[in-house]
């Protein structure tokens, strides 16, 4: 999910080349108070011209929080621009999401939307993290949860620790929420865009915790993520061989089969099938 300040026209144009899964047009923290209206108008106008979905890129808008005067205007603009998803910041209660959904419905009717706008929730406070499960299961529109690192840290009255240990509880909690509800879990941004090593280290760690995505603030970070996610040719070969062996075993009506000297059953195969699917996304194998 690539953050893109919504008041910068050239970035709208360039973002398509970086092939992020999702572009998140930011109307919140990246835009100055005096520029909020202009950014909102720019968003609506540019999305009339550029069809990101045609390039297999999902669109999202980070709106301003419910406690700001921009909340409803941002929602209206997002719906009229037909973005796929809204990222709601600083969510703390189910009521916050209900208020959002009510406005979404209002403007989806007004703009004759043919599909429901999805919701991505950002938790940035202790209360939000503690309520995350109840909040995230409150609507089928909710497709993912994310952690907002800076605000969360301020709310905790903590300080930044090596390897961001202060985020550990929140990270693990949100991964549990996401896995329980079978939705996406996105980690915090990595602010030092020049620190490739640090980014890679953090990303490998959060991937290990179970996150399946990270919010990025520089296009070069997308490549770094892809490099870690992309299966190696050896991993792909192994997965393809196991898939072939699995298909062969099915012909013989076997649930468990011997593969390279080890007994293998369905969950093991499923993991390898995921690798093949991922390889398809990276163009390593042709789609069937």
């Amino acid at each position, binding site marked *: 999910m690539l953050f893109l300040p919504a008041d910068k026209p050239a970035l709208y144009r*360039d973002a*398509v080349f*970086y092939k992020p899964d999702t572009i998140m047009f930011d109307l919140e923290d990246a835009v100055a108070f005096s520029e909020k209206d202009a950014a909102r108008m720019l968003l609506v106008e540019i999305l009339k011209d*550029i*069809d990101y979905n045609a390039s297999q890129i999902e669109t999202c808008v980070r709106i301003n929080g419910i406690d700001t005067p921009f909340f409803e205007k941002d929602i209206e603009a997002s719906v009229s621009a037909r973005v796929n998803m809204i990222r709601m910041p600083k969510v703390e209660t189910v009521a916050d999401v209900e208020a959002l959904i009510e406005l979404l419905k209002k403007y989806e009717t007004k703009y004759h939307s043919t599909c429901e706008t999805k919701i991505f929730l950002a938790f940035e406070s202790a209360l939000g993290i503690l309520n995350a499960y109840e909040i995230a299961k409150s609507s089928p529109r909710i497709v993912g949860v994310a952690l907002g690192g800076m605000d969360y840290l301020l709310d905790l009255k903590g300080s930044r620790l090596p390897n961001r240990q202060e985020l550990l509880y929140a990270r693990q909690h949100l991964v549990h929420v996401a896995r329980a509800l079978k939705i996406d879990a996105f980690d915090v941004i990595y602010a030092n865009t020049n620190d490739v090593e640090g980014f890679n280290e953090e990303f490998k760690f959060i991937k290990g915790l179970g996150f399946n995505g990270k919010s990025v603030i520089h*296009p*070069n970070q997308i*490549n770094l993520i892809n490099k870690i996610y992309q299966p190696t040719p050896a991993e792909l070969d192994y997965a393809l061989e196991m898939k072939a062996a699995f298909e062969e075993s099915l012909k013989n009506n076997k649930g468990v089969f011997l593969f390279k000297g080890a007994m293998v059953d369905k969950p093991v195969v499923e993991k390898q099938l995921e690798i093949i699917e991922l390889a398809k996304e990276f*163009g390593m194998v042709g789609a069937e």
Partner: protein
Amino acid sequence: MKKPELTKEYLQKIGQLNYELEPFNKNQAKTSNFSSILTQLPNKGIVRDKVVDLKTAIKNSGLKNGMTISFHHHFRNGDKTVKLVMEAIKELKIKDLTVASSSFTDAHNFLTSYIESGIVTSLQASGCRDTLGQFVSAGKCKKPLIIRSHGGRARAIESGDLKIDVAFMAASASDCMGNANGMMGKSRCGSLGYAMVDAQYAKYTVILTDNLVEFPNKVISIPQTHVDAVVCVEEIGDPKGIMSGAIRLTTNPKEEIIAESIAKIITSTDLFKNGFSIQMGTGGASLSAVKHLKKHMIEKQIKASFCLGGITSHQVELYQQGLVTSILDTQCFDLTAVESIYENDDHHEISASMYANPHNKSPFVNKLDFVILSALEVDVDFNVNVMTGSDGVIRGASGGHSDTAEGAKVSIICLPLIRGRLSCVVDKVNSIITPGNTVDIVVTDFGIAVNPLRKDLIEQLTTAGVKLKSLQEMKEFAKTIVGEPKPIDWDYSTPVAIVEARDGSVLDVIYKVKG
């Protein structure tokens, strides 16, 4: 008015040159029809010291109204020599001169006032930028600017198409007889690749130096046998100005995408093996590509035989790390390269003629496996423009672009698909500098396109899993984002520049932009 057809008759009318202009024919290379054996060999008697002051050198050279003088541009934006010489010429009241420099940089903007006052009436160069470029594009120069590639310029000098009456060559170290180099002294610029050709073929050659050394000079790039006079001046140029203009490093994400694609292309071809050779351009993406390529070279234990062309710290680094055996240097692009050419035995200085003259027996560009080149725009027929901006104004340089594109086994052009609010892949480029039949691959941040003429490359890259797109596809995609620009309103009655192919035929004519 329609763009005029480039017939022989039309070109002759606008060229006003001492030789016949012929239109470019991609199926037939033009051959120089002049023997390079000098028709007059001077006998200067016994000369034991050539040091004179600038005005005396000019007077002794016999420089008169209507003649041609030349300079090199090794100092790029740091050049101080051209101004010094032109001021002296102005004081001597000599007019109607053709200034044939290897290129013009921002340091030469002052020439506009010399053109306005009639001291200069014609320009010939590889490049022209900034306010001088705008001035020429506005049709304010009496005769059209002749644009030649580096190899094309060397060819023109040797064939007599470009007859230099007096060459003024800056050198950071010279002895009293004119044995000169650019590697020693306070104003070092490194290789004197362009100057070597001028010094050899000009009727009269003046070395300008701010560092007169003991005879004989330790390093002789230009020998005394080609030099008539040596002039000592306070400062010939500022070495810091060398690394300017087109050369920059980048972490620009779009250029990073392009750089990774370039590395992928190179490593996917069967030419990527021990002993391969390469020339990198000076654009951000092509410099970044070196970083990726280096990783592959180390991983696969592949060593290159030589790097060619304009040299930067990147090639020097490859050499220092043992990843390339030799550097063949026609122009140093930064101070690391300047240091290296003096210190490293395998870092060789070569002349522009050795580098890329298509009419010598074998220029080095013909030994190249890969060349990576930047561009301003490319058209769907693979023609490349590196000279005129989207507004039609002259603001670039041909350099070694067409020379290396033709000579190298694989020529790779890299550019972003969109710049500003314009697509860089277009139906027809504003001006053709490198013809499409010599361009093999175009890389943008949106994808890679291979010239259909290179079926071998298409097969190799496809087999290696590199996904290819067509230029048409790229152009159409860009259109969905930025739409189609308004065409430039050219004034076809006012040609402002003639673009010569490296063989001397005419590739294109650049016209004045209306308004």
